[in-house]
Structure formats: C-alpha cells, structure tokens
C-alpha cells in the first residue's frame, strides 16, 4: 500500500473510531453536566464536570446490590451456558452426519423463535417450579444457548481431522479428547461465548422484570429503569450518570476479551 493510501486508511479508521466513541463520550459528558446545560450546545459535549449527578443517582437505589445480582447471575448463566453448549457442540460433531444435522437444525430453530412468543409458557413453567422472584428464574432459562452451540460447533468442526486420528491411535477417549485437545484449541470461541452470554445476562430486562417483584433479586438494568425513568420524562443527567456506572463493568470486560472476540469472529467466518 502506498503512503497516501495508508494515510487515507488511518483517516478513515480515526473517523470510525470517533463515530464509535462519540455516543459513549456524550453519555459520560451528560453525566457530568447540570440538567439545564445538558440541553444546550455545546454544553453537554464539554461539561462543567459536576459530580452531583453521580451522587444523586447513586443515592437513588441499592446499586451495589443490583451489581452483585447482575454479576452473580451473569457468571452463573455463563458457566451453565458454556458447559451445555460445549457438550452439545462436541456431540453434534461426533454424531453421524444425518442425526447431527437434524439435531443442529432443531437447535438453530430455537434461535429463530421470538422470545416474546414464549414468555407465557416460560412464565408458567417458572411459576410451577416455585421460582418466581428468585435468581433461578433468571439463570436457568438461559443456561442453554443456540448461538453458543452454533459458534462452538463451527470451531470444533474446524479442528484438523489429523488431531482426532492421532488421538484415536494414541487410544484417547472422546471425553479426554474434549478436555485435552478440543478445549485448549477453541479458547477464543469459549471466550466469545462467555462474553456473549454474560452480556445477554447483564443486559436482560423484560424477563427479569416479569418474573421478579423487588430489588432483592433484580438485576442492574431493571434497577436503572425503575429508579430513573418515568412515563412523563427523564432526568437525562442522572440517568446518564447511572448508565455510565452500570456500563463500566461491561466496557472493562469487553476491553479485556477484545482479542479473543475478534479472533473467534474471524475464524467462524461471521461478518458484521
């Protein structure tokens, strides 16, 4: 690539970066602004750095409790989903093609059913199990994930056949092959699934709202909506402050796992 071409590419990349960062900056800037200046230009874009909104938003509810709920449920959901999707994906690769094809299609179908259409049946199951207003109601229904199975299956299928043949010659069992060969080779995919499921859990809103009745077991997103938005208007500065401190854990997590996510996406052939 010529020098001019490189410069153009970098200009384009910087423009995309700025475009991506702008809403995040806007949120943080609004969170540091007084309510009336937040509606003026360039008021909200270069704030007067008041911390009052954070103090007010933090005092509005039991945020530490919400954070603990979200983190705990996110970790539990991720752990369950990793186990179920890894075993399913591995089984689908080992099974005869026809059987695996039918089962895989069935799993893909679960991704195509709108969540809203199964709210009532799911609610009735959770209620009959006595799980209303519990953590279990928010974790167990998401302990298996069709997309995670799809992603891991693609990765496992991509492993060289020679690895499997060599393992068979060495007399390794399918179980040991999974743990000692497959898992170490699909770490980027596992990281992606972890982030994906954790974010789904962290951002869950409607389902937790329907099956819970109080802050004791509610996640941070429900707390955010309940405490800081109304049917008539919103105090954007306080809401931005709360949105900022609820987004920080996710931003950190994404930054830490960024390399694995990029690698796994490039290897599965998924294009954005």
């Amino acid at each position, binding site marked *: 690539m010529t020098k001019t071409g490189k410069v153009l590419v970098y200009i384009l990349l910087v423009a995309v970066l700025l475009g991506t960062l702008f809403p995040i900056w806007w949120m943080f800037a609004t969170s540091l602004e*007084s*309510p*009336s*200046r*937040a*509606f*003026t*230009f360039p008021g909200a874009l270069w704030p007067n750095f008041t911390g009052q909104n954070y103090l007010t938003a933090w005092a509005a509810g039991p945020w530490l409790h919400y954070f603990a709920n979200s983190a705990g449920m996110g970790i539990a959901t991720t752990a369950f989903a990793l186990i179920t999707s890894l075993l399913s994906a591995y089984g689908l690769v080992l099974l005869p093609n026809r059987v695996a094809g039918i089962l895989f299609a069935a799993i893909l179908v679960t991704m195509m059913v709108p969540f*809203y*259409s199964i*709210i*009532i049946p799911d*609610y*009735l199951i959770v*209620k009959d199990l006595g799980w*209303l207003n519990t953590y279990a109601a928010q974790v167990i229904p998401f302990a298996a994930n069709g997309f995670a199975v799809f992603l891991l299956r693609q990765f496992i299928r991509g492993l060289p056949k020679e690895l499997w043949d060599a393992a068979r010659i060495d007399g390794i069992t399918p179980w040991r092959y999974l743990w000692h060969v497959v898992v170490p080779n699909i770490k980027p995919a596992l990281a992606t699934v972890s982030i994906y499921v954790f974010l789904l859990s962290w951002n869950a809103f*409607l389902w937790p*709202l*329907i099956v819970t*009745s*109080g802050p004791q077991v509610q996640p941070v997103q429900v707390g955010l*909506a*309940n*405490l*800081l*938005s*109304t*049917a*008539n*208007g*919103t*105090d*954007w500065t306080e809401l931005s402050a709360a949105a900022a401190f609820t987004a920080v854990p996710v931003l950190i997590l994404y930054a830490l796992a960024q390399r694995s996510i990029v690698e796994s996406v490039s290897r599965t052939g998924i294009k954005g």
Partner: protein
Amino acid sequence: MVKKFHGVAALMAGSLFTLTLSGSTAAAPHPATHQSRVTITFWNEMTGPYEVALNRVMAAFGKHYPNVHIVDVVVPNDATLEPKLLASIVGGNPPTISQLNPSWAAEFVKTGSLVDLTPFIRSKAGFSLKPFYQNLLAAGQFNGQQYALPFNVSAAVMYYNVTQFKRAGIKSPPTTWAQFEADARKLSTGGRHAFAITLVHPYPFRAFVVQAGGSFVLPNGKPNPAIFTPTGAATRAVALWANMVKNGSAVLTQGYGSQTDFANGTSSILEGTSAFYPYLAQAVGKRFPIGVAPLPGDVVNGSASFGGYLGIFSKATPAQKTAAEEFVKFLTSRVGQTIWMQDSEGYLPVRSDVLSVPSAKKFLATHPAQRVALSVFARSPMSPKVAWWPDFSTDLINDVTAVLDKKMTPAQAMHTAYQEALTVYANSPGR
C-alpha cells in the same frame, strides 16, 4: 419498540383469554379479620420522583391502617407493566391491586380477573362518586359497574417559550387551530420548526381529534367510521399537522425528542401533559420562562387525559380484598388526591372537591401546568376503554407518522387506519 410490546401484549392477551375460558378459577379464600395483619401487593409505574410522592400517600394511609402491609412493586412504564400483568394473570398469581389502563381493564373484566368495585362503593364503608370527574369515572365503568378508579391522571396542555413568542411579536398563546398555524409560521425562522411533535403515545394526536369534535369509538364499542372520512375529525387533525410539517412550522421527533427540542430552544411549542412540567422546568432552568396554555381548540376546547387507574384482582383473599378496597378508597379520597397532586407536582386530582382544599388552592396558584390542565380536564376524555385500542393505537401512530413522513395523504392514512381498526376490533378477544 411500542409495536413490539403491543405485539407481545396481544399474544399474551390471547393466552389470558384462552386460559380463563378453559377454567382457570380463583384460589380458595382465606378469611381474616380486619384487625389481623394483611399483606397486599401494589404494582404501579410510579418510578423516580413519583415513587417518592406515592410513598408519602402510602405512609398517610399506613397511619390509618397500620395492620395493612403494602408491598410496593414498581415497574417503569405501560410497555412493561402490561406484559407483567398479563403473565401474572395467566399464571394465576396477579397482584392484589395494580395500576392499569382502561383498555386493559376491558380485557380483564371480560375474563373475570377484576373485582367489581360497585358493591363496595355503595356499601356503608364505601364513598360517593359524585365529586369525581365523570369523564374519568366513565373510562373505568364496564356493563354499568365501576371496575377501575382513576388515580394518576394528567391532561395534555401547550407549553410555549415565552421569550420566543415575544420576539416573534405574539402577545398571547393561540386559542384556535388557525391562530396556532399562523403563530407557528411566525416562530419558524432560520430553519427552526416551532412545533415539535411527539408520538410516543397516541394522546397528543387524540387531543387534536377531541378538539375536532371526534371520538374513536361508538357507544357499542365499534370503531367510529365518521372520524376517518376525508372530512372527519381524525383526518382534519392529521391534515393540520401535515400542513404544518409541509410548510416547515412543525417537525416529527423521535421518542421524547420534543422535550429536548423545547428545552434547548430548537422548538417553541410543546404539547405534553401536566406531568411533564417538573422535567421541563429542570431542563430549561433559567434560560427562558415557560408559558402554559390550553391546547388551541377547534370545534371543542378540549384535550386528552392520560394516566392510570386502579383495579383490584379477583384472586385476592377476602381480607386482602377488604384491605385493597380501603387502600383504593384512600388513594382516590380528597385527602389522598390532595397529597398526590401536591407531591407529584404534575398529576391532577381525579375529583373536583380537591380544588376547594386551602392547601390545594395555594399550590395551584404557583403550579401553572396543573392549573391550566384542570381548566380543560372535564373536557378531556381518557383513551377509549375497548380491548382493541392498544393494538389500534400502534397502527394509528404508524399511519399518522406515514402522513408526516409524506408517504401517505391524510385521507389515505385515515382510510387505512379505519380498516385496521375494523381488523383489530374483529380480532379482539371476547368482543
């Protein structure tokens, strides 16, 4: 998003109706004396500052009824309360009391999920409905019985930027549609649009249809064809907005963008309920004085009311039902509504006798949005209490949006809206 949630609600409503028909019945009652401790659950949308106000009213109730423990469950808005309520009803464990819309109540009454409040109201322990605004009471009545009582209600008014009005040489806010159009033109200079339209809810449009003398529903519950004709009230209302968009004096905003536009001075006129006022005052600060006036009228000088009702669910035990009835009575009482109006700083009392309370008089003297809204409150109907309204209102918003986006003419859009109204009416459960 609204469409999605209404879709969910429709789906769930279907399930509710089917399950109820298939024999889902009330739980066995557990009688309890009035003196024993009773726990009731109250689902409501009173988030943020309104939750603080509601807590004060509940605390006042608690002083009179220390044996009643209220579990206050807050959800953010209609879009989330409706599916939560439907799921709980289908699941057989609804709350004791919930805030609800009259159109949901229509469905709940048909499935036997709501308690008829009339026997309690007429009993010795009951209360008179005379002081209530009759237009509000009507929305909670089904088959001649009172199933839901109004609680947190506001009405649409016109907010305006006093500084920009003065600068444009407009001495007083417009009182007719013709003046409204003319003033909006004067205010729309330098690429600014005077009137920022919000269609998050249908009430802003409904208010203009009311002014044009129209009603969406016939007494028999069917869609009213007259308002959708080329000269009908709905068509004239959307044509007014469309003309203003066409000549650059109005613009359709997304979400609550109209509040933002008004607060930063991009627009000069905002249609919103009295409950907007605390948020607007905070957002505008001292940059300009906010004027409040009734919406400009056409055939009628009216508006649209918007808000929540209270209903008791039939799954409640007799003791819970008794406690819930006392709670509803208190929330809608003169005392309860006075506290609620003053502490919420945006909602209106649902009964006119609050206006003679000295503290209420003093309060209204310094709160123009509520004062102005009250001046048109009796001529501001609630959203229609028919089960097909929630689905239709989404279609209506889409049709009005299509006109403002110049994809349809007003006549075409309202013809389409009528066909959609007939379809949702035909498909509404148990009509």
